Every structure is written in C-alpha cells, then in structure tokens.
C-alpha cells in the first residue's frame, strides 16, 4: 500500500499521518492473528481456514503467505488466501455537512475517514466511500486494492463540508444501500435533530462497524469566559452569548446527553461508538478501530 501520491492533500493528510496509514495492514493483521478465525468469515462449507486460492503478491503482503513452491516452479510471486480472510464489504460514509468544518473538525473527520478506509482495505476487503449531505447518501468511490487508498484520500480531500447533512433522510437512504453483514464506518458529528432510532432500524441486518463520533469541543467549549457571538456553521444563525462556567457546564451536559442517546441507538444496531476530537492522536484512533471495532 503506498498512499504517498502527488495528489494527497498535505493539509488534511500530513506525512506523519501517511506513514501511519502505511502501518495499518500490519497492525490489523497482528490484531486478527490473535483472534483465531475472526468474526468476518464468510458462510460456506469449507470452514474458516479453507484455502481459497492464490492471488498476485501486492506490496505489503505478509511474506509468510507467499507460496514459495509456485515461485520456484513458475517464477511467479503469489500469496495464498483462505476463507477466513475473504474480503469484507466496508462502507465508509462521511458526514458532509458544514458543521464538521469549524475548529479543525474537517481535518479530523477526513483523517478518521481515511483510517476507516485503510482498515477496510486490509486483507483484500472492498471499501465504498460515500458522503451524507442534504438528506442524501451519495457514494463517491469504491476500491478493493490497497493501492487505491490514494484515490480514496483524494476523494476524501475533495469533500468540502457544506450545507446540512439531513440525517433524518440520509440515514434511511444509507440503510437502503447497505448490504447485509456489511461493515459500516459512519464518520459524523451527530449534530442533528434526527431521531437516533433511525440507526436502530438497521438492527438485525448483521451490520458491524462503528460510528466515529466527532465531538468538536467548540460546540460546548468556546473561549474560557466572556462575550462571543456564536455563528452556526450550517445555518449562519447568530447568537450573542456571555459565556460563563455555569453556562458551559449546562451546555456540556446537554451535549453529553445527546451523545448518549445516539450511542445507545448505535449499539442497538450492532455498531460501536468511537468518539474522537480534533485533538485525538490518529494513532489512538487507529488502535481503537483495530481493537474495538468488529
């Protein structure tokens, strides 16, 4: 996997982050090596470790999977594949609303989306990247080759937060698109009036994955104290507020309660909830994706 393409946005994806992306396959493989058959084995008669066939060697593949006999006999570098590592369909959907833009939210969401794509591409999985905006779920790009990660990054970088997400309409539209037993990564700030029960409606379809919840501190932690005029990133509505510790505490409680409702709904749908913030180190977020997300 080589995400260092000339087109990668250095602002959203700095070199350090790109180097982290390169380690994603090894990290995921090491985690899954200790998890026996894993949880993504396809249904079939061959069992979880049934040899499925060969495919051409790709950069980043574990050398222990190289079929040395084929190499010696036919002078071709191929690796063995088993059913337990059959590709998993990973749906990565990014909240494209303007509310992700302030306070470094866009970059944080873009990097989380990139990490989700990288995790989805590990082990030969297929990834579909899409955007939720204005009540619609619009797919942007599909990839099944780690070499396509650079193209996914470009597609992520091309998305500029704008308008509203309209999750009340977009989530049902997304649910209609999701294949059964797919792995879903939904990157969103959940700043919506939509009913969290919309997520619960996807329960029973064998979904896995996580809601990557961008909890932008600017939502409830503006300057320490004093006057400021809050401008809604989506609607442009303004409101003068004298910020006080008491008021900040009340706002933080409301935000926590809101997040709790969505967390409850996500778990009902089989999804984990991974909160993150612009200040969250990408390494920590990757570790949580690899360790906590089925």
């Amino acid at each position: 996997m080589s995400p260092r393409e000339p087109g990668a946005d250095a602002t959203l994806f700095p070199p350090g982050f790109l180097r982290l992306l390169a380690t994603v396959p090894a990290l995921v493989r090491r985690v899954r090596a200790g998890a026996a058959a894993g949880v993504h084995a396809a249904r079939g008669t061959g069992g979880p470790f049934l040899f499925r066939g060969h495919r051409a060697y790709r950069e980043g593949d574990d050398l222990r999977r190289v079929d040395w006999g084929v190499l010696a006999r036919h002078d071709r570098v191929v690796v063995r594949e088993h059913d337990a590592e059959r590709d998993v369909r990973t749906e990565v959907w990014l909240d494209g609303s303007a509310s992700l833009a302030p306070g470094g939210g866009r970059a944080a969401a873009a990097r989380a989306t990139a990490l989700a794509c990288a995790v989805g591409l590990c082990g030969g999985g297929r990834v579909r990247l899409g955007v939720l905006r204005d009540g619609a779920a619009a797919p942007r790009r599909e990839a099944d080759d780690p070499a396509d990660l650079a193209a996914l990054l470009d597609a992520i970088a091309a998305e500029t937060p704008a308008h509203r997400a309209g999750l009340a309409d977009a989530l049902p539209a997304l649910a209609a698109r999701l294949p059964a037993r797919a792995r879903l990564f939904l990157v969103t700030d959940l700043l919506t009036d939509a009913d969290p029960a919309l997520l619960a409606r996807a329960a029973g379809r064998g979904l896995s994955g996580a809601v990557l919840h961008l909890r932008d501190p600017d939502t409830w932690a503006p300057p320490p104290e004093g006057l400021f005029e809050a401008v809604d990133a989506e609607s442009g509505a303004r409101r003068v507020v004298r910020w006080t510790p008491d008021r900040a505490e009340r706002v933080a409680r409301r935000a926590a309660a809101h997040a709790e409702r969505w967390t409850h709904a996500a778990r009902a749908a089989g999804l984990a909830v991974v909160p993150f913030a612009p200040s969250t180190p990408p390494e920590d977020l990757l570790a949580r994706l690899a360790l906590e997300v089925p």
Partner: protein
Amino acid sequence: MALLWPFALVGLLALPVVAWLHRRLTRAVPVVVPSLRFLADEVDADRDARRRRVDLDLWLALAGCAAVACAAAGPVWRSHGAGRTVRVVVDDGPAMAARGLDGSTAAARAEAAVARLRARLAPEDVLARVAAAGDDVVAAARRGGAALRVVVSDRLPALATPGVEVVAVGDPAARNAGLVAAAATVAGTTRRVFVAVRNDAADARVLRVAVAGGGAAALDVAANGVASTTLDAPAGDGPIVVRLDDPDGALAADDEVRLVPSVLRVAVAGPDEGLPAAHGDLVRRTLDVVAPGWVAVAPAEAALSVGVAATVAPAGGAALWLHPVAPGATGVRAPAGAARERPPAPFGDDLDVASLDLVYARDVLASAPWPLLRVRTRPAGGTAVEVLFDPLAGAPPPADTAAWPILVENVVTAVAGAPTPGGFRVLGLAPPDRARLGRDRRDLDDAALAGAAPDRPPVERSLRAPLLALAAVSWAALWGRGGRRRVA
C-alpha cells in the same frame, strides 16, 4: 463653581471615543461553531449579554477621563463669594436710653436698625459690630477695613462724615429735663446746694426741684434752656440728695444726683492680703493726685477697696482689683500694635490705650483683643473694677504713663463721684453733651449699601487635586481589573 480654563472641557469629547473603543474591544467576537443546538435553551443569553455591555471597566475608564478633562479645566469651588465687611458702630451713650412716647428706647430702635441692615446683607457679607459713644462713634467707624461704615445713633453728626453712613434712630417728639450741675457749700452748720436744670424740649416748662429733707423750688425753664437755683440742704455730714420732678422725661437717670463729702475713704490691701507693697504704694500715690485728701480706713468703712481679686469689699462699696504679675514669674505681653479692647465707658474716657505696653499675669488668660478692664457687679452689691494688666510691668510700665492716673481717676469718679468745688463729690450727674437727646431720624441709604464694593476676595478652593486623585484611583482600579479582563 467656576472654571479657570473652560476650553479644556473639550477633553470631554474623549468620553464617546473611550466608550466606542471599549465597545469595540469588548464586543462579542464572532465564533463559528458547529451548531447552536446546545445553546438553544439558554433563553436569556442575548439579553444578559446586551445588559452587561456597559460594565464597570467602562465606567472606570470614563470616570478617569472625565476627571482629567475637568481637572484640566481648572475647576474651583467658591465656598464664599466676594463679600463686603459692613462695620456698624452703635452709639451706647446715656442718651440712647431715652424712652420715646411709644415706650421704645433709642437703643431698642438701634437694635432694630441693625437687624434690618443684617437682613439686607448677602450671605457672603459680614457685619462687624462695634460700640462707641459720643464723639468716638465716627472715629470708631473709620477704624479697620470695611466696605461700608455705618453709625447708628440717635442723632446726626454736626459735621459731614464722608465715607460713613449715619442711621439716626432718635425720637423727634422726645422731651426730657435733667440736672446738669450740682454743687454744695458749707457755711458753719448751714449747707446749701446749687443746682442747674436743663429743659431738653421744644417748649418752656416749669420744673420742680427739691432737696431731700431741705428746700424746694419751681423753675421756669425756656425751651432748650437752663435754669438754676440754690436750695437749702439738711445739716449734718450725710449725703445730699437732689431730685428733679420730670415724670414724663425720656431719661430717668438724670433726675437725681447725690452729693457726698469729698473725703474718699479707701482701704488698700497689704502684702499679707496678696497685694504687693509696690502696687499698694502705687495706688496710694495715685490717689494723692486724683483724690486729694483721701483717707485710709478699714475695709468695713471704705467707699473704695483696693486689692487683688480675693479682696473683700463691704456691701454696697466699690472695689478696685489688680492682677499683679507674681514676683519672679513671667507675664504675657501684648504684642506691640496688636488690637486693644476699648474699656467700657466711663472708665475708658480720655484713655489712649494704643501705646501702652501691657503685661498680664498668666492667670488672667488674656488674649487679643487685649483687654484693660473688666467691670462686674458683685453679688454683695456694688461694682468691682478689675485692672487686668499689671501697672508696674512693661517698658515703660503703664504706671509711668498718663493713662494710669486717668484710669484711676475714671474709676474713682465712677464709683465715688466727680469732685466739685465745694468739697463734695457728685454722683449721677451725666455730662450735658451725653445726656442731651438726639431727635434725628434717617434710614440707611440703599444706594450706599448697594454700591459698596466687596472688600474681601472670594474664598476659592481648587478641585484639581481631588479630580486627579479620582482619575488615578479609577485607572488604578481599571489596571487592577486588567488581569480579569474578558476575552471577548
């Protein structure tokens, strides 16, 4: 309040600038936030923000700027404006006791005139009241500094008095008759009395005069004229009392005189009684001059007792008390040129007190204006005259000046009567010039009062220092609050 440099108030234009800068610096900074949904329940946020837009910081800054601008304008507070000193001399001569037909005395009318004058003064004006009598009233009015000088008397001066306004409160209809001269002669056992009666009225009168226990006569006295007669007096050594029948006269004090033998009986205290020997000798030498033939008697028989304040005088007799400086002690000297208190009449008659070097015993507690005498009526009866200065202290001591014998003579005359050629002393005989009634009426000239220019500058206090202090305090408080300055 006034401003020395009013143009400096232009600095107040900085106040709106400060307010604008404050508003700009503390305005709500726009912050793009992901959503307002969690602020929606903060219903009073906007109203609260608007209400507190003008906060203590702004008031402190405005107060400091305003104080500096006002201080630059040089404000002064005039607690008193330019005022005038009105020096009022009230005649306290014997004629001021004359009672008019309406029952009021000239002194009472003078008091009413002073009260009217006081009521017409501005708050910043000062009325300085002085008492004088006879010809001294005009001279007293001209002493010291004043914007307006007023004499209140029962008569107008004979001569013009430029610079002095005269208010006359006499009664044109008043009439009086009085004894103006009395003398007694002794021939063997026969005593006769010569009396003169003055008719101070506009019409001729028949006045009856009588000697107690002796003769009597009715005198035809022309208007403003004088008539005299000689009457028999009772034999013996007792005093001779002459009475004038003038029931409707304005003055009662001049209707009776007493003629007593001129031999003055005096008791002079000795050193054992607290009066130093030198002072006793001084009194004796002075009495030899002013009361020739005086005799020293025991205190119980004395008409005049001389001693210190504790000296006991017989009831009804007069006392002269001295306050000598104790030997070896240092007295209190009145500074040269300092104001002296004018002695009351008649004790201060003909006295020039301005040049006296006065030294007081410390227990007198004298202070400016430096007094000479204190006259009091003793509880046992009689008059006590205290000489407050030490006549033998000073350079030269008052005893070596003409003032001392004049003072002692005035005291002796006041308590024992004036000597007459026949060897008697006469009591109750008022000087004709003072007993003559004044009948003039004149109110105060309004133009003189209105035209009197202020003689005292206004009392002003600069407010610059308090204003600068206020600015410093305001800005210091503002500086102190800097650490807690709002972010917005």
